[in-house]
């Protein structure tokens, strides 16, 4: 058997570490850069690497939505707002405000949670019994049937509530921005 013909899997540890390193470095750059546009670009890198991680988890639909919404949509609006800010003035201001102590405590708590999950993960979230099938080609359909299917759909109500919340936010933004409609 030819070694190259055996379709090497892409979801190798190498790619996991590469994408994770990109995410961590990007995340650090987001909070350490003084220039807001550089931070935004680092955040985009982080989000794209995250989309790559979703792909490794056999969730192509989530990855595509991540790119489409976060990297392509929300970050453009971020940049749109950042460009209206005077960069010279913000660069001179203090990087961290006075709540950094609270921030450290919160970050420490979150880190503790991660360590707990990492060490006791197998007992907290047991893997499903039997062989796990990666239905890569069915991911989109699976998400759809979880959301909308009459029998299997467990999340339709919460999904609709979330979209209602977004609608309220849109209307609120219009009402606040426009004095006279």
């Amino acid at each position, binding site marked *: 058997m*030819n070694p190259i*013909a055996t379709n090497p899997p892409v979801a190798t540890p190498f790619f996991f570490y590469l994408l994770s390193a990109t995410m961590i470095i990007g995340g650090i750059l987001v909070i350490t850069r003084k220039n807001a*546009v550089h931070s935004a670009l680092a955040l*985009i890198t982080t989000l794209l690497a995250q989309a790559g991680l979703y792909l490794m988890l056999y969730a192509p639909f989530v990855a595509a939505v991540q*790119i489409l919404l976060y990297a*392509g949509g929300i*970050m453009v609006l971020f940049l749109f707002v950042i460009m209206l800010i005077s960069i010279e003035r913000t660069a001179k201001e203090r990087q961290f405000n006075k709540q950094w102590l609270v921030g450290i405590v919160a970050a420490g708590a979150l880190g503790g949670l991660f360590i707990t999950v990492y060490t006791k993960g197998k007992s907290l979230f047991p893997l499903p019994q039997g062989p796990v099938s990666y239905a890569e080609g069915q991911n989109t359909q699976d998400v759809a049937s979880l959301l909308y299917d009459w029998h299997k759909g467990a999340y339709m109500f919460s999904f609709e509530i979330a979209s209602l919340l977004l609608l309220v936010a849109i209307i609120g933004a219009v009402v606040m921005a426009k004095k006279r409609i």
Partner: protein
Amino acid sequence: MHALIDYIVSYLHNETQTPGAAGNIFWATVYILLVFGGLSVAVIAMNWLERKILAHMQVRLGPMRVGPHGLLQPIADAIKLLLKEDIIPAEADKLVFWIAPFIVVLAAFTVFVVVPFGPTHAITDMNIGILFMLGVSSLSVLGIVTAGWASNSHYPLIGALRSSAQMVSYEVAMGLAVVSVILMTSLNAQGVGTLSMIGIVQAQQAGHEWFIFKFFPLGLIGFGIFAIAMIAETNRAPFDLPEAESELTAGFHTEYSGFRWSLFFLAEYSAMIAVSSIAVTLWLGGWLRPFPNALGGALWDQIFSFFPGITFLALGGITFFNVRRMPKHPLFRIQTLGLAGFGAVLGLIGIILFIAPVRERVSDIFWFSAKVAGFMYLYIWYRGTFPRYRFDQLMKVGWKVLLPTGIGLLVLTAAVGMRSELWSTLQEVVRR
């Protein structure tokens, strides 16, 4: 070595899969290089064609000096751009200024990974194909915005702001039109909808109907929305406000020169080809030949498969006709010979395309490219005829016309597709 040759040959017996799906790295690389090269040639050809066609629309001659009928003008332009001084403004944000053109080019070229030139002629087929194309092409706006901001100059910044507002608004309408097509794929038979680009064309093949004609006029309206939104997405006239030359000099790429500017140029044209190929795949049957029903059957298949060869022979014929019209002065001797050589190459390609195995393999690529070429002509035609929109008019069209039409279209498509279920439910309700 033997194993390597076996590996290369093994894909040739595979007639149902793209190299990406078959996992064949060698052929995937070959396809990537072919697509990249073909795209570059197409951009060069578009450069010449746009100048010539626009000129003839405005009763001018266009480029005439470099080569016969200015045929070598794109090469001269390319050399000029490469030799130009590469200027980075002193006050610019160097790093971002440097990165921005690459973001645009990467986004514009990456989408071609999933463009289906034929059932097996694509680099790969993803089950999220259309989402991938929309997502990656939406990344190009990041490059434009950062380019405008990094120049640290007024006109580029205004251009970048306009561009981001415009692209975000028209993406919504574009997405709605695309979703109506995805609904149509699933309405052929229950629960077999697909997002894959190849799957969408196969759904049209199975339904014996291009989606532009499906649920008439709903498919046509969806196509119309997409056709308008895609021009705004690619910043072309009449929606070329981010680079409106009468107001903003050159918009977001005012401060760019030389090679970096040519990257923006390359990205703009390959993005135009990319969105056109989305439109062709989604509404115009992708690689399928025209008139599958009215002129169906094996005989017509045979006749239509001669089209690529005939087209190239005709192009060669036109070239030879023009060779005879060249001035007879000895100064034009080399040009005349060159044009004759070009015509001979075109004719030779035409003859090669008549060979049966080549003909069968290439006809799908030909129909896809021909449809995309039609869109490219439309782009030039729009630029020659429509006046530029004002920015508030642009926003009004996007949010108040295209978006409501898109939502209505989506609801109507779903209702028409499910009409039998709706009808039976209605009857049940009435009976109670």
